[in-house]
């Protein structure tokens, strides 16, 4: 047996105007406050007060001296007071690879340590380049760590 619907064929109408107003306000708010920021990362440096000892401490296996010109750009890199790499970061990385055998340290507190000794006026971006060259290398999407222990020598006041 077929029941006929007694309801009329009229559609129930919703009042959408106010909702759309609010939604558009929200959309404008989010668009205006949206800020595209580049992804950021950290280099961890653990330096207790006694850690930044004098540059000639015998316990430091790798000493990296960064010399700057008058403009604050990198003039020369000297490793262990003997090897000069100019401003060629690939040579520095090759040295670190050779020194570490391309192996990651077993834990963040182990493995070789690098002490960075820089001229006072050296631009900070060069310091970060040195830290990057020493810390590891990127292999595709993976980052291979070579040195975890980095510290700074006492500042060389001009």
């Amino acid at each position, binding site marked *: 047996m077929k029941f006929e619907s007694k309801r009329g064929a009229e559609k129930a109408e919703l009042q959408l105007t106010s909702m*759309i107003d609010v939604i558009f306000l929200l959309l404008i708010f989010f668009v205006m406050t949206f800020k595209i920021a*580049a992804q950021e990362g950290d280099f961890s440096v653990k330096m207790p007060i006694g850690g930044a000892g004098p540059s000639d401490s015998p316990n430091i296996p790798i000493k990296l001296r960064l010399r700057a010109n008058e403009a*604050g750009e990198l003039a020369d890199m000297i490793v262990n007071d003997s090897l000069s790499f100019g401003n060629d970061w690939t040579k520095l990385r090759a040295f670190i690879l050779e020194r570490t055998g391309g192996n990651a340290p077993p834990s963040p507190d182990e493995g070789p340590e690098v002490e960075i000794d820089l001229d006072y006026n*050296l631009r*900070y971006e060069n310091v*970060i380049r040195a*830290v990057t060259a020493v810390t590891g290398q990127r292999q595709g999407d993976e980052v291979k760590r070579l040195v975890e222990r980095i510290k700074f020598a006492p500042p060389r006041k001009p």
Partner: protein
Amino acid sequence: MRIRKTFDTKMAEGDLTAMIDMVFQLIIFFMVLINFSQDDQNDKIKLPSSELAKPPDAPLTFPIVLHVAPNAVIYMGTNVTSVETIAPLLRTEIQLLASRNQTPKDANIIIRGDQSTPGGIVQDLIKKCQELGFEKFALRVREEQNF
């Protein structure tokens, strides 16, 4: 003579379903990506880049963000200071740490240095923090864009 309206008085109804769907999708997109925390950002600082920059796996414990501008000005929250005058601000942080049964050794100093800042200023800042007992530092860099 009275002229009769010949058109229908019914309102023209547009189908709003697709538009509302799209607008909701946009709102969800912006809501997910929005970042209200401005304490670790500073427009005056242009971070150096590094190919090894990767966001930390876990949030750092008790982070203290210091922005180092090229003219040796240091921004710490809303305070504008310098290496010579930052100690009282850091001591306030140490008191806050003590109230949570923590020491400066537990805190992480995040240094956001401008790429043209003299490296010696950053060294001075690290030394000053060390004198107050801080041990853990994070040098913040931005991801290198290779395109």
